[in-house]
């Protein structure tokens, strides 16, 4: 037999067909329902904010990697996800330069300074939002009503009796672009779950804790789940793989902890909404949660039984 050139590689020799890129594009696809809802309710303002946020996130990532002479990885889809998420958690009437600044901060200080994809401890879009909220408190809390664009308060600011559950569910309420329609968010969430990209523990823990706690303190749980960005964040941000625990029980801890913090901020804090900080704080706690919720290695600590 003539000398063959055989390929040598460590096992396994077969791989699953799913890729990280496909996961990112699945998330993008799952963002379509809230994007469509945002376009429907806010029209051109939504187009402006979403396009600017998404485009500046991708451009920032490419520029940063170019400056650092690192491989440019914008085609993995992750910067686009961050940019679109960023846009969806902003008010429809935010000035353009603030939108761009939010995306730049999200990508640079939320993601790239830690080494890029997979290495960021905090959800980049939430870092961008936290930055904008503390820097530009007034524009970040000036909301307009869907359709007619008149300045208005969010349901969380004015209380449970001012809006109907029906409107909360379908989305005819003032708020960030992506959070208005609970229905759109649910469709996206079901799609993510169906595609195996969403771990139900974090959103379920988050929402259930929120509902139980507000009920204990005499408030309407349905209102608290549908108003504000808790549902949007539960589906699209509490499920961010990079910044949440990897252990199954750790994921419950994450969701439940975020729910606790959220209710504390909503009921007793000076902010009407607390999703951003609830999730960022739990992001920060994730390494510890991973450590504390490690499973017992199979075969360790068992009696020999002999």
């Amino acid at each position, binding site marked *: 037999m003539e000398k063959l050139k055989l390929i040598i590689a460590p096992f396994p020799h077969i791989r699953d067909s799913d890729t990280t890129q496909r996961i990112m594009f699945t998330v993008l696809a799952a963002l379509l329902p809230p994007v469509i809802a945002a376009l429907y309710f806010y029209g051109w303002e939504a187009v402006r904010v979403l396009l600017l946020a998404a485009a500046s996130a991708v451009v920032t990532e490419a520029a940063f990697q170019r400056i650092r002479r690192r491989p440019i990885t914008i085609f993995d889809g992750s910067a686009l996800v961050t940019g679109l998420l960023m846009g969806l958690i902003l008010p429809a009437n935010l000035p353009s330069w603030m939108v761009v600044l939010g995306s730049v901060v999200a990508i640079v200080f939320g993601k790239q300074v830690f080494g890029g*994809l997979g290495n960021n401890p905090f959800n980049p879009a939430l870092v961008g939002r936290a930055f904008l909220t503390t820097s530009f408190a007034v524009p970040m809390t000036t909301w307009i009503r869907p359709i007619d664009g008149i300045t208005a308060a969010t349901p969380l600011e004015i209380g449970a009796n001012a809006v109907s559950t029906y409107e909360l569910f379908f989305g005819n309420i003032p708020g960030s672009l992506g959070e208005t329609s609970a229905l759109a968010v649910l469709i996206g969430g079901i799609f993510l779950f169906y595609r195996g990209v969403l771990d139900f523990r974090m959103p379920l823990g988050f929402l259930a804790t929120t509902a139980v706690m507000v009920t204990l303190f005499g408030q309407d749980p349905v209102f608290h789940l549908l108003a504000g960005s808790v549902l949007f964040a539960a589906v699209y941000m509490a499920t961010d793989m990079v910044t949440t625990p990897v252990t199954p029980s750790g994921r419950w801890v994450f969701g439940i902890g975020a729910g606790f913090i959220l209710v504390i901020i909503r009921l007793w804090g000076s902010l009407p909404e607390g999703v951003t900080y609830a999730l960022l704080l739990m992001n920060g706690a994730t390494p510890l949660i991973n450590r504390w919720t490690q499973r017992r290695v199979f*075969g360790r600590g068992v009696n020999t039984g002999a």
Partner: protein
Amino acid sequence: MKQSFPGGIWLPSLKQTTAETPVQPITAPERVVLPLIHASGNAVSAIVKKGESVSMGQKIGHSDGPSTAHVHASLSGTVERIEPWPQVTGLRGLSVIIQSDGMTRRVDSPTGGTSDPIQLSSAAIRATLLESGLLGMGGAGFPTAAKLGGLAKEPAQCLIINGSECEPYLTADERVMQDYPDDVILGIKLLAKASGAERVVLAIEDSKKEAASIMHRHRGSDRIEIVLLPSKYPQGSEKQLVKALTGREVPSNQLPHQIGILVHNVSTAWAAARVVRTGFPPLERIVTVTGPGIKQPGNYLVPIGTQLSDLIDAAGGFAGSPGKVVVGGPMMGIAQADLRAPVTQFVNGVLLLPEEQSSYPEPIACIKCARCVDVCPVFLLPMRLEAYAMNKRWDDAAMFGAEDCIECGCCTYICPSKRHLLHWIRIAKERIATTPDDAD
């Protein structure tokens, strides 16, 4: 809910090409290579010399301990040389190379054989198995007699016959149950008698319906429990199998027989029956030769010591441009560099992948999706172990249980970022094992 184990993955079966065709013998090769080195790393000493004439079944390597087994000539001919030779493990090992004389001259049966094997005493069965040099045919190559002899308590609580064959592509065990049902059942009974096991279980994946029903028809009495298990990988892994069938967890630094549970492969049972029945050592085994890279995929009855190149020729040769030649299955098999390596008793399959299916994916950043954590059957954090290994943090890797990795490959398989998780974990394991405890 069927009995199973936590973690693992549902792999594509890829078994269809060879599952339907009965076992066929190959023509005896001109030359066989019989390694004196064993899976334990220990070697036996040659008791033949270069130029000596040998008969089929003649002992050529003598073992003097439980970590090795006797080695026998698988064809008649002349000892051409005794020298280090490429092995399927990727290492070289001292081997006896025998040139065939074209005859099938046999030694007189070393133990005589018996027409009524089931009447033999437990001790007699063990003695025959020990003398035969039979190794576990499932893949690890542990001497069969040593497993019996190493039982922590006797009689064994449970004898598990592993017919799970969870690796994709491989069908040798499935075919042995279908084509040699009487020898398989006899082998199970002999191993049951030799171990005195209270419970005897034949575990088969539920995808092998035909094999299971044939086993049902031939088992004779319900002394042999036949359990169908979900076709989830790595169902055939010893400790996962023990967990699924008995609910017991084998302690991390021990083997099942050390807690009184014997696990033998179904092909080992088949070989044990032939050994005891005929008195001859195992001279051949069934090997699945499969994959898109081979012209005539099938299950072949192959003389022990047949070189991979001869086996590939016997199966019609390469289809397309050769890429990988993997000994074992696609999950845990070893890609071969040198096709002069021989088929040993524990080679259950040869998988040929053409060049276009042999690419080594380029990894990208880990996104902590935790799919590797979800599938790990021993509850490790593969992505964390990988990071420790890449940063040479061996102590941290040890603290997070790297040594308990069973190398099933589920983590690498499932990783969407195509990271080589198991590769790095194995490096860490190697480092941890070879570093003295007191080193810094």
